[in-house]
């Protein structure tokens, strides 16, 4: 064979192409004057300008961030507590308890949205708002967060916590000074995953926020008038933010400013 690249490298390139080509295309189009047939290229920034002037864009951004951050923190907290409980307290019901945490993964988001709306409104008499959107998103995000936390927590050596207790640390103090510093990467992972899920969620959020805009509901509303150019800009910006965040994390890990693991 005379190929310069091995078959593995070629397969890898193909996989990345499969994953990233659509996203790259959206980013490319967001800078094009003609979004329907953007060839030959004709670069412009006007879609970004339009996006900033779009009615409700700022409110939608703030609402989405609020829902994302609220859900991220709440889900990670609940998932961490749940995972510790499942792992530390031996019980023959352990499998059932874990399965019950994961059940929301199998329920359609649309159903969670409608169900929480009906429950809140008819049984509790509560109006939908950003707070209820956070709670509704937390139901399924906790399941994802639980998986993320459980995977790493299963490797945690709980005898370290016992050691801390023998040396005078009450349970909360032991958690704070020994458990958390060792498991924070998985907790952070759970925050990020549930943040992204809630930030981008449409089906659950839609039924909770009423007339308040979020980025996905705004995009959904805009879609009724056809795919407008601002949506390409919006998608590109969200992607850019996520890539920047992950890139920053990578740099911090490479430079050793952050540590994920302690070899022992």
């Amino acid at each position, binding site marked *: 064979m005379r190929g310069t690249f091995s078959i593995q490298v070629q397969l890898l390139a193909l996989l990345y192409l499969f994953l990233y080509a659509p996203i790259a295309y959206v980013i490319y189009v967001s800078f094009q004057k003609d979004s329907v047939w953007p060839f030959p290229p004709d670069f412009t920034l006007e879609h970004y300008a339009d996006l900033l002037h779009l009615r409700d864009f700022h409110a939608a951004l703030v609402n989405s961030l609020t829902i994302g951050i609220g859900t991220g923190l709440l889900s990670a907290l609940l998932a961490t507590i749940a995972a510790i409980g499942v792992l530390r307290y031996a019980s023959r019901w352990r499998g059932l308890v874990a399965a019950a945490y994961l059940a929301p993964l199998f329920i359609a988001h649309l159903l969670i949205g409608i169900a929480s709306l009906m429950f809140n409104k008819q049984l509790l008499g509560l109006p939908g708002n950003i707070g209820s959107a956070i709670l509704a998103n937390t139901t399924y995000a906790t399941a994802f967060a639980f998986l993320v936390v459980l995977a790493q927590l299963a490797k945690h050596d709980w005898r*370290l916590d016992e050691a801390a*207790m*023998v040396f*005078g640390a*009450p349970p909360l*103090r032991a958690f704070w000074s*020994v458990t958390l510093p*060792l498991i924070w990467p998985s907790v952070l992972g759970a925050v990020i995953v549930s943040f992204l899920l809630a930030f981008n969620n449409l089906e659950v959020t839609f039924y909770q926020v009423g007339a308040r805009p979020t980025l996905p509901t705004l995009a959904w509303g805009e879609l009724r008038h056809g795919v407008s150019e601002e949506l390409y800009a919006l998608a590109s910006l969200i992607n850019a933010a996520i890539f920047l965040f992950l890139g920053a994390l990578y740099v911090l890990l490479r430079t050793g400013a952050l540590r994920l693991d*302690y070899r022992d």
Partner: protein
Amino acid sequence: MTEAVLRLEGVTKRFGTVVAADSVDIEIGREFFSLLGPSGSGKTTMLRIIAGLEVPDLGNVRIEGRDVTRQPPYRRGVGMVFQDFLLFPHKTVAENIVFPLRMQGVPPAGRAEALGWITDLVHLKGLEGRFPHQLSGGQKQRVALARGLVSRPKLLLLDEPLANLDRELRKEMEVEIRRFQLELKIPFVYVTHNQEEALTMSDRMAIMRDGRILQVGGKLDLYHHPDLAFVAGFLGAPNVFEGKVTGLADGLAIIDWQGYPLQARAKGGLAVGQRAVCFVKSEKIELFAGTGQGRVDGVLRDAIFKGQYADYLVHLAGAREVTVSGPPRAELFAPGRPVSLSWSAEDGDAFPAGG
């Protein structure tokens, strides 16, 4: 033994059908005390009960006279050295060592002073800023010891702390750990399945099996005067002879083994006509070149030179092989040579067989 610092009273603990502790009574003073037993004998459970990591089903734990049976570990004021060290991997050596002091609310100046004192004692100067994964096994061991001792605990519990170290390092640490106990006068409760460690370091020791304490006493006493066949067989490198008791007189038994009348101290209510097992430690047997009257005849199979002493493997009648330890003698480094053995009656211990 001075006043008891730790007292276990009728401590019993079951895990399902397994009895890990069966009404254990122990008193430990300002001494080096070892719990010695095979794996699964319940010695680690005993240590966890003392530390407060397990609550006994029955019985009491008293530390300095106070009943701490239901007290959580963080209120007991004991130190512990764990088998896998269990150093906090995200903390430096210094942070690991002063952790107990921080939990007790000792101000930074006091912690720094204690850190200086303990790193000096355990020879860790200069490593304070390292992380556990940057340390060798022996250094980790020293950090674990320093963390256990830094707050001058009422007791130090050690759970097979040398099990993961290589032989050379183990020898060195045995001497060191003993030195710490003598200098600090803190009671050490040391759990091990390794009799060498227990015999090297302890003042007193207890032999455990199946959750029960079989015999407690000074180490020499236990070694030379076992009360039970298990203890006799567990300590030292004993040779075992099994035969019928043909005579009893003055606390000594005569056991017929392959036609030889062997003598040993009679223990455990031995009766004439009963089958008995007789234990004789390898270093208590005297080896003679050539056969001799009143001695057990055999053939030297091999002599293993260990430096200060030698192990002679002797083939006896009935395909029995025994080990005799003694000073290396040139005339005995001759495999195939006829030899004979004897020991004084007080150096053998005979117990009823099957007990």
